[in-house]
């Protein structure tokens, strides 16, 4: 994927729509074969210039991730949190910033932030403070956002993630990225741009929804690493329940800070890439930006510290308008909110209303098994390979499906995993179905595998059943059919 981006950037140094369209035709792509590979997932990113004796480039990628907290009501007001509702129907007077309204902190949002902080190995600040970040935009009715800039709720954590490395991409390497801080902040409303009438329509349903901003240190060096880290964070948030983290619904938003430099030299100027709407585009956007910066610097230009938006249709980043000069947010303490005090069992004062107290130890005891722990348990319990455990957890519902089948069949788990990952998952992907939408239930597959184990049917027959869609009509009919087969032991289905 990185190689194709390089080819595109060779032909179109300034990303113009006409050039990109020309790229998509076959012959031009073949003509522009790039000499030398791009090593992704490693510290050094080689450009073709590297072949000519220029020093290799190292990319530095830092992420700022905003995760919408899964709660019934908003961070500072009692209006509902819901995706896709009639415009401005989930807005309270505080969200609309009418005078005389005050913020009231939602306990559930605090617990979500503490849970996430503990899961990411952060130290939880027992005292954290709220600040105002001022800037003018139509979807921010108050003119400021309440955030935690001075003293956030959690700091100094780490996130471990794995990615496929090696020539055949079949070895798993574990990397770690440091988490600088996790803070609570308000979301802004939504603006719909109506270019024909030269106006913007504002919907404040999202204004005031609680967000957790996870700030990562710039420890990553490629789009692939960033995508793997975000995927792992997504799984962790979904396991904890603190956020549903669905990127398509805007519940997980990622901004990437990208810069390049030669190893040993000081860090280069960074640009911020916004408007990345899916995990798929995240890797592409970052890789494009890395290549763009390398090309710019090798052509004698400079990288401007700016904000760029990723255009997924063109596959490139374009500068965003506005932004004259550096933004001065004029941070000030939020005068309407005293410091947030969290307790643990030792510091818990006696005779307190438990509804007014958030106990870190209580939350820590109730943390569910994180994805990394679940993977280890799968490997230990079923004897499958670590790569398999990754695929099982990556696909929503697949782990439960696998465990159900393994429990109900006599076939060994190591053989079952092959059926699940190759045949089942292959079939689902081919027909664009989720595990929940699978026409084959775990019970049916377990029975099928049992028949296979006992030698009643051959594996080619079992595979056939998995690929012929017409046969999915009635599971009990099929079961009877197979039981009929059992009587004629040598029959195999073609």
């Amino acid at each position, binding site marked *: 994927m990185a190689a194709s981006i390089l080819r595109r950037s060779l032909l179109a140094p300034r990303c113009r729509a006409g050039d990109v369209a020309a790229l998509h035709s076959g012959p031009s792509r073949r003509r522009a074969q790039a000499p030398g590979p791009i090593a992704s997932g490693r510290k050094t990113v080689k450009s073709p210039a590297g072949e000519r004796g220029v020093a290799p480039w190292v990319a530095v990628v830092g992420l700022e991730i905003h995760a919408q907290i899964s*709660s*019934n*009501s908003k961070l500072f*007001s*009692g*209006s*509902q949190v819901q995706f896709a509702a*009639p*415009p*401005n*129907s*989930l*807005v*309270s007077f*505080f969200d*609309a910033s*009418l005078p005389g309204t005050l913020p*009231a*902190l*939602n*306990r559930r*949002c*605090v617990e979500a932030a503490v849970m996430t902080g503990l899961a990411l190995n952060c130290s939880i600040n027992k005292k954290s*403070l709220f600040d105002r*970040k001022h800037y*003018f*935009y*139509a979807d921010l009715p108050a003119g400021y956002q309440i955030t935690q*800039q*001075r003293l956030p709720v959690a700091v100094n954590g780490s996130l471990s993630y794995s990615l496929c490395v090696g020539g055949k991409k079949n070895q798993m390497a574990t990397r770690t990225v440091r988490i600088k801080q996790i803070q609570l902040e308000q979301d802004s409303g939504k*603006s*719909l*741009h109506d270019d024909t009438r*030269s*106006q*913007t*329509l*504002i*919907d*404040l349903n999202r204004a005031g929804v609680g967000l957790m901003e996870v700030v990562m240190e710039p420890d990553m060096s490629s789009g692939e690493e960033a995508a793997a880290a975000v995927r792992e964070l997504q799984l962790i948030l979904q396991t904890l329940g603190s956020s549903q983290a669905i990127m398509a619904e805007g519940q997980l938003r990622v901004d990437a800070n990208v810069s390049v430099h030669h190893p040993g030299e000081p860090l280069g100027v960074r640009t911020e890439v916004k408007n990345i709407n899916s995990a798929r585009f995240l890797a592409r956007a970052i890789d494009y930006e890395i290549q763009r910066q390398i090309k710019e610097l090798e052509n004698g230009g400079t990288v401007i510290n700016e904000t760029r938006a990723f255009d997924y249709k063109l596959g490139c980043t374009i500068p965003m*308008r*506005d932004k004259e*000069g*550096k*933004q*001065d*947010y*004029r*941070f*000030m*303490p939020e*005068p*309407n909110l*005293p*410091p*947030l*005090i969290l307790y643990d069992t030792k510091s818990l004062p006696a005779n307190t209303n438990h*509804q*007014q107290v*958030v106990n870190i130890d209580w939350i820590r005891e109730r943390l569910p098994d994180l994805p990394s722990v679940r993977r280890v348990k799968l490997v230990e319990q079923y004897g499958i390979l670590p790569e398999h455990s990754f695929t099982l957890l990556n696909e929503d519902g697949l782990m439960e499906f696998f465990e159900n089948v393994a429990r109900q069949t006599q076939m060994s788990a190591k053989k079952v995993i092959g059926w699940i990952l190759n045949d089942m998952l292959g079939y689902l992907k081919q027909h664009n179905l989720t595990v929940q939408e699978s026409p084959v239930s775990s019970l049916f597959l377990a029975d099928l595998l049992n028949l296979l184990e006992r030698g009643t049917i051959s594996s080619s027959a079992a595979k056939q059943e998995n690929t012929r869609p017409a046969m999915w009509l009635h599971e009990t009919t099929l079961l009877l059919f197979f039981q009929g087969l059992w009587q004629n032991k040598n029959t195999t289905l073609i």
Partner: protein
Amino acid sequence: MWILRCGRYLRGAPSGGASYWGGLSPGSRFTQAASGGSDGRQEAAGDPRRRGPKKVTVEVLDHLERLALVDFRNWEGVQRLEKAIQFADQLHAVNTEGVEPMDSVLEDRCLYLREDNITEGNCTEELLQNARETVEEYFVAPPGNIPLPKLEERDTFLQVSE
């Protein structure tokens, strides 16, 4: 409240006031204020008004107008600002070594935690009544921020050189 911090910035400036604003990252605001303040305290320990009324530069005024959308209107407005800064500078007479800065008079109160229940919303019509222009239950706004034109292109009293 930010006038106090504004005053600290202007007081400690070795060169012009404009250089402060340009190079700052949002996070450094408080640390810079603290160090600027302590410098001021050391120098002015016995003489709070040693530096004298410092002139606010035109660049800083233009920046303030652009950032806060405040209109100083004429030099009288600027003088009022300078007097306010002077007034706040009297705080430097107090030795606050080793004392945590105060955020607000309510900072020792308990932060009330609200239960996660839906208690508000569903007042679309009421909210839209406040807007001059609405389209199908949406508020209407201009297509983007309309920034103040550059100083040279504006018709403002700040253009008159001092």
